[in-house]
C-alpha cells in the first residue's frame, strides 16, 4: 500500500460533499468535500505500489487546467485502472454540484 498527496489550482469551492464508488477489487472510493483557497488537495491511498508517475499524469490531466471547483479529495483505491479513477472523480464532481451536500 502506498500513500500519495497532490495539490492543484482550482476555481470556486465545490457546492457539496459526496462519496462515490467502493473499495472493491478494481474499484475505488472518492470522497469529495468543498475546498478553500482556490486549491484542490488530493490524498491517495492505493493498494498498488510504484504507480506514482501514473497517478501524477492522470491527476494532472484531470486537474491541471485548474477549471474544476476547489475540493478536498480523498481517494481509497483498490487497483482501479486510470479510466475508472477518472470516471469516479468526474462522477463525484457531478454529484457534488447537483446534490449540493449529500450524504
Amino acid at each position, binding site marked *: *500500500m502506498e500513500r500519495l498527496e497532490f495539490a492543484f489550482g482550482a476555481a470556486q469551492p465545490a457546492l457539496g*460533499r459526496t*462519496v462515490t464508488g*467502493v*473499495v*472493491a*477489487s478494481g*474499484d475505488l*472510493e472518492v*470522497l469529495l*468535500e468543498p475546498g478553500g483557497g482556490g486549491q484542490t488537495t488530493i490524498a491517495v*491511498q*492505493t*493498494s498498488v505500489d510504484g504507480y506514482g508517475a501514473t497517478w501524477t499524469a492522470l491527476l494532472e490531466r484531470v486537474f491541471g487546467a485548474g477549471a474544476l471547483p476547489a475540493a478536498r479529495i*480523498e481517494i*481509497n*483505491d*483498490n487497483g482501479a485502472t486510470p479510466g475508472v479513477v477518472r470516471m469516479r472523480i468526474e462522477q463525484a464532481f457531478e454529484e457534488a454540484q447537483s446534490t449540493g451536500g449529500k*450524504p
Partner: protein
Amino acid sequence: MTTEIDIEQLLRRDSFIERSARSRAQALLDPGTVRELVGPFDRVSSPWLALQNLVTQSDDGVVVAKGRLDGQPTVVLAIEGAFQGGSMGEVGGAKIAGALELAARDNRRGIPTQAVILFETGGVRLQEANLGLAAIAEIQSAIVDVRRYRPVIGVSAGTVGCYGGMSIAAGLCSYLVLTREARLGLNGPQVIEQEAGIAEFDSRNRALIWGLTGGEQRAATGLADACVADDTAEVRATVARLFAQGVPARHRSERTSEFLAALEQVDTETQAAAAAVRAIYGEKQRQGDPA
C-alpha cells in the same frame, strides 16, 4: 418458484444485487427520510487494516441509514459485500450493534423502531480477529433485544451471501429474505472442502452449492421466509409485508427442537441432496409454521 425467465420482467427490473450498500439502504427507505449515521465523512474507519497494508474504506463497509419505511421509523444496516468480502471488523460491527442498541432503546422509550440488516458477508474479518468476533456477538444480542419489540428483518441478496457468525445473526432475525442468487451457510464451500475433503463438499460444484445453500432451497426448507427475484421493488415490498405481520409468535431460533429433530433424520452416510433435505426440512417447516 419457477426457473422460467420472464424476459419483460427481466428488462424492467431494477436489480438490488447490483446496488452498492448505500444505494440499497436508500432504496428501502421512504424517499426524503434517509439520514446516514456515522457516515463516510465522520471518518470512523478501521484502524487495523492500514497496519496490515490494506486500503481502508471510509465507512468500514457498513452503512447505517435511519429513516422511515411506509411511514414507520426504521434503521437499515447495509453491509458492503464488495469491500473485504463484507467482513465484520471492529468498526463496522460496532456500527451495526450500536444502531440496533439505539433502536432497542427507542422502542423502550415508546418509539416503535424496526430494523433491516442487509447481510452480504463472509463473517468475521480475519485481520481483526477477536474484535470482529466480539462485534458479531454484540450484533446477535442486540438483534434478540430489538426483536422483542419490532421485527428485525434480514435480507441477503447476493452475490456474496451470508456466512460465518453473521449467518447465526441472520438466523436470529424475525424474518429472513433471500434471492435465488444468495447463499446462506455457517461455513462457506471452500472452508468445508478444505476441512472435510472434496468427497464431503466440492466447492467448484455450483449446482451443489446453490442446491443446498441457495436462497430457493433455504426458503423451501424453512430456514428463510421468502425467496424473491433480484428486483428492488420486490425486495422492498416483501420487507414491508413482513414488517406488517409484526413480531412472529415464535422466532425461528426458538424452534430449535423442530430443527434438531429434522437434522437427526438426515443420513450423513451419503452426500446430501437438495430434494432429500427438502423432504425432511420442508415437512418440519409446514408443521412448525402457523402461517
